[in-house]
């Protein structure tokens, strides 16, 4: 494998895809398994440290990690020569690899939309980055929490699609 070969660049893009994927899903699991369950147990006077400093920074790396994962994933699929077949879920290809990676890709894309279209706009209201009434904040907390929890659930079959693709080869 030459240093500047197409295969080398493909490997680099796969590396970046996995790096940004860990950045994204790592923060997703942090929010769901650690921060959210602990918030009610944190003394009220200490909560601003989380909502004012930790959460906005974590959300920054979370949402941009999601964007980078999708971008590098699409480039990787294109470089691997199966972007079209994967988007079509491998229908008509009689190849389980395309069905597996295609389902994983679509689940990842739904999760990405959850982040940018549902979670982030609602989090901005919760954290006070945009003005919202207390009722709106309560409603936003439930919507963002549910969308985030759905993403934890979807991450399980999404990761199966990503790794099983190699098993079906």
């Amino acid at each position, binding site marked *: 494998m030459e240093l500047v070969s197409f295969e080398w660049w493909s490997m680099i893009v796969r590396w970046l895809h996995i790096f940004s994927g860990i950045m994204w899903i790592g923060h997703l699991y942090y929010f769901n398994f650690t921060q959210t369950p602990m918030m009610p147990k944190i003394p009220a006077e200490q909560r601003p440290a989380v909502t004012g400093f930790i959460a906005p920074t974590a959300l920054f790396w979370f949402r941009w990690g999601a964007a980078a994962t999708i971008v590098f994933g699409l480039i990787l699929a294109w470089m691997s020569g199966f972007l079209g077949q994967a988007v079509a879920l491998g229908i008509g290809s009689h190849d*389980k690899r395309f069905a*597996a990676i295609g389902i994983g890709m679509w689940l990842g894309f739904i999760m990405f939309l959850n982040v940018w279209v549902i979670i982030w706009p609602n989090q901005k209201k919760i954290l006070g980055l945009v003005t919202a009434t207390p009722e709106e904040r309560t409603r936003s907390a439930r919507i963002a929490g549910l969308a985030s929890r759905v993403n934890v*659930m979807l991450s*399980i*079959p999404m990761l199966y699609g990503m790794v099983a693709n190699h098993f079906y080869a």
Partner: protein
Amino acid sequence: MWDWLLKGTGKYGWPAYTILAGLVLTVIEILLIHAIAGS
């Protein structure tokens, strides 16, 4: 309606239901892969 996913129930916490639901979806995914591209 969605409290089992957000908060869990009195018996088990949300992680049990969320992970179980994810595993059920994975089984459906495996069946779909075979249905779509089975030999």
